[in-house]
């Protein structure tokens, strides 16, 4: 009595809600952004944006605050990515050897990942407090008192202070992924290498690294995404200050949006970000794919 199997049980209705939702709240806005970025849409005339061609982009590249925020974003991304990758790998190595309390350490290091960036920023603003904060107190305690300074107020150190905070907060992610990768390398390889007389170091370079290449890919991409889209950390710790010295891309967008009411301008900045990041990401993916295949 059952009909012949022309009937497809995988109906498109399953995917419909997701398609619609994602389309309305993600795809459409991105497309709209390509238009809004070329208007003077602002809070004075919120329902009547006018085309102003490339003015927004001209103003962006003219603005010293924009160039500072781009510089800072790039610096932040590079520094945190490199440190998180190197330190994260190192920590992962440590935690896959014969150390006691491995799981406990892993939990402790990963825990800050689940804390809200704003809250972490508040905690660190107390740590960086020049008079009482535990950082300066510690430096004085170990006799490095001359290194103490007002970390968040001097432009040079402020950005590094933010980087340090991000590393503290997110190195757990990198480490955990590396741990998974290292675990996935079959022991036989190491034993074979040991029989061949390879030193620990050579084992590392020739076995561990290549076989965890995909971890490096994932981690790099994750770090880059976290780095370029940084917002809460900077907003909470310095809000772009002092005097716009620590602005990053997303705080720049937020400032144009919330303080200046220049919606079109911030949409333009967002559009630029989307285009650049998409291109860079796809390029990176392509590069990593090739590297992986070679290994």
């Amino acid at each position, binding site marked *: 009595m059952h009909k012949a199997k022309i009937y497809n049980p995988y109906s498109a209705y399953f995917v419909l809600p997701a398609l619609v939702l994602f389309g309305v709240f993600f795809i459409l806005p991105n497309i709209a952004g390509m238009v809004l970025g070329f208007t003077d849409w*602002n809070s004075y005339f919120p329902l009547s944006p006018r085309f102003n061609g490339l003015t927004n982009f001209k103003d962006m590249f003219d603005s010293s605050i924009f160039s500072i925020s781009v510089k800072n974003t790039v610096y932040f991304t590079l520094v945190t990515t490199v440190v998180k990758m190197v330190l994260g790998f190192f920590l992962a190595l440590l935690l896959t050897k014969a150390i006691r309390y491995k799981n406990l350490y892993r939990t402790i290091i990963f825990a800050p990942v689940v804390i809200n960036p704003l809250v972490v920023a508040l905690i660190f603003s107390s740590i960086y407090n020049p008079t009482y904060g535990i950082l300066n107190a510690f430096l004085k305690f170990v006799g490095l008192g001359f290194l103490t300074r007002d970390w968040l107020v001097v432009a040079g150190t402020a950005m590094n202070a933010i980087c340090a905070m991000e590393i503290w907060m997110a190195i757990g992610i990198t480490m955990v992924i590396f741990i998974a990768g290292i675990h996935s390398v079959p022991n036989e390889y190491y034993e074979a290498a040991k029989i061949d007389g390879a030193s620990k170091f050579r084992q590392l370079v020739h076995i561990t690294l290549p076989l965890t290449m995909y971890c490096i890919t994932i981690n790099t991409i994750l770090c880059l995404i976290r780095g370029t889209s940084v917002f809460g950390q900077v907003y909470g710790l310095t809000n772009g200050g002092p005097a716009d010295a620590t602005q990053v891309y997303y705080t720049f967008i937020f400032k144009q949006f919330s*303080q200046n009411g220049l919606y079109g301008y911030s949409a333009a900045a967002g559009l630029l970000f989307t285009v650049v990041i998409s291109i860079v990401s796809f390029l990176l993916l392509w590069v990593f794919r090739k590297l992986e295949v070679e290994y």
Partner: protein
Amino acid sequence: MITVKRQLKSITAILLVLSLMFLIACGSNSANNADSSSSPAATETTKASETPASETPTTAPKKDPVTLTFATYNEWMTQGTGMEEVFKLYEAATGNKIKVEIYPNDQFINILKAKFATGDVPDFYAMNAGENGMPYANLEELTGPWVDKMVEPVRKKVTRSADGKVVMAYFSPLGYYAAVYNKKVFADAGVKLPLMNYDQLVEACKAIQKLGIDPIYLMGKENWTAALFSYIGGVEVANLPGVAEKLATNQAKPSDIPEYVEMANRILALKPYFNKDFMSVPLAAGIGPVAEGKAAMTVMGDWYYDEILKEYPDKVGDLSIMPITLGDNFVSGVATYDQHAFAVPSAAKNKEAAKEAINFFMEPDNFKVLIKPYKGATPLEGYDVEMSPWQQEMADMMKQNNIPLTETNFSIIFGDTVDFGPIGQVYQEILAGKSSKAALDDWYKEYAKINKAKQTPGF
């Protein structure tokens, strides 16, 4: 088979619609419960629940209680301000309720503008007076016995230039932007007050510094505190012939005007006299050091009277306020005409009730409650508003020395039509090391862009 499939489809569709409806219902319910509302716990008796005599056509008193929505800055509704109290009086007198919505300080204006655009306006709001901040378009004309009692500068500020109608109800005692200073410290340093020009200011700072006391206390973490120097001290520059006109119509950039650049440089030149940690002191830290004599003065305003009264009651007499200037030949007391005021959007759902509520607040007895805890001269003639001892002393000092009362440098230059953008960052940047010209140029770029968007004539 086909019928089963159809059944399943329709069931799913119904389920989806139902859950969506459920979500919306839940959403709006919780939204209603979550919004803060002031409770009608009226412990004070009001002075007779007479309906305010108004010149608007008297609408019959509503039988059903209305809930009015009110929006304002986060900062203006902190505990102890009169608005909270007078709202309770109003609720007890009329049975209406007021739902208060507060917004972060640096976003309120933009949020309000967005609300106007979508028609989702509050019934009334409190904002700084001045067409410069929140445009006066789409506001209801306000009428009531208080309208004619406004003193002239206040009336001008709340009148819509397009048609001359009064659209805001000003409820701040008139005060001063000024330097809050420690009389004892200045006396010990042998400085003669008032300081009539910039050179005298610098000399005074040097004398005070010799005593080992910080001459100027700056809460420099905020991005607007350094701008007060130009606000208050830059009146001479603003009054120079042509300056105001050129800047307001975009015929010149601030960095094109040598006197303007000089003013910025003079602020920078005061840097050696600031407290060493000025860059990290937030506003919330308060001006304790001035009260305790560890700093000589801070360039702020008379509103600190109440705070000092609370925290350093025995020192309140040691402090006072005085005019300062960055100019060579001119000093003025700078009045605050741009403080708290109510307005009613034309698109408000309960605008008649809102207007009546405002008339209620503006009655003399309620007004006294409304303006707490601030002191100053009365903005409405005949109203009983207290001046603080500090304000009295400053008024006396001004009279004795023929010091005029003016508006701020910004009001004079930018008037009410030009948006002056993020002024705060200019001086913070200069103090952090940027060159005056570069900082002024960056500021110009920002405010020019905003005014272009605003379609201000000339930009």
